[in-house]
């Protein structure tokens, strides 16, 4: 069964450093997402991406964040200058959704980001 994959599973970085989290969505999916979940808190929407551009973003997704789909398979989240409060699990998700219907999102296993 196809699945969303994410690398690395755990990333430790120093405050102020740049990190890139990588995701490979399910191959025929059209919509891509990033979420984060701070330990013990709810899953929070960051950004959605469709047709090679951001379609929606939350207040959390400020200028320190960017997303890219550099090739036909990868979808990345970059944090330019990490802060302590960026420590969280980051989940990538994808959805097929042809225009006439809506369906569920498939989540990856997550990347645990620890900022020291």
């Amino acid at each position, binding site marked *: 069964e196809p699945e969303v994959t994410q690398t690395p599973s755990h990333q430790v970085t120093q405050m102020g450093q740049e990190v890139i989290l990588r995701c490979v969505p399910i191959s025929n999916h059209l919509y891509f997402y990033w979420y984060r979940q701070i330990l013990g808190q709810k899953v929070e929407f960051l950004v959605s991406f469709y047709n090679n551009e951001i379609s929606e973003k939350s207040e959390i997704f400020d200028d320190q964040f960017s997303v890219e789909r550099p090739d036909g398979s990868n979808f990345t989240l970059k944090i330019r200058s990490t802060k302590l409060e960026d420590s969280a699990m980051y989940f990538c998700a994808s959805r097929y959704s042809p225009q006439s219907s809506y369906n569920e*999102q498939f989540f990856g296993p997550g990347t645990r980001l620890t900022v020291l």
Partner: protein
Amino acid sequence: SQKIEQNSEALNIQEGKTATLTCNYTNYSPAYLQWYRQDPGRGPVFLLLIRENEKEKRKERLKVTFDTTLKQSLFHITASQPADSATYLCALDILMDTGRRALTFGSGTRLQVQP
């Protein structure tokens, strides 16, 4: 303000009983409501989706109801098993100011099924 509330932080039931989880929301008009399961340290796994014009949806031992007047969804697991122990997340498809939609999650209910 907009809120999604899920009942109690933890729900403990005996194996074989029916678990009922509640999701209440205020100041939203979702077109879809979804339920996900999340195990510790893992990503959410989709379980069921129900549309605003549907009252009830079933899948094997799972049943979801959606009352847009009460602004409430109930999620039932019948004949519960210890393997059903997990956190269950309610998620609403929310219309953002841009006219596009985003998925907004509740904080989840942790279910513990005792053998």
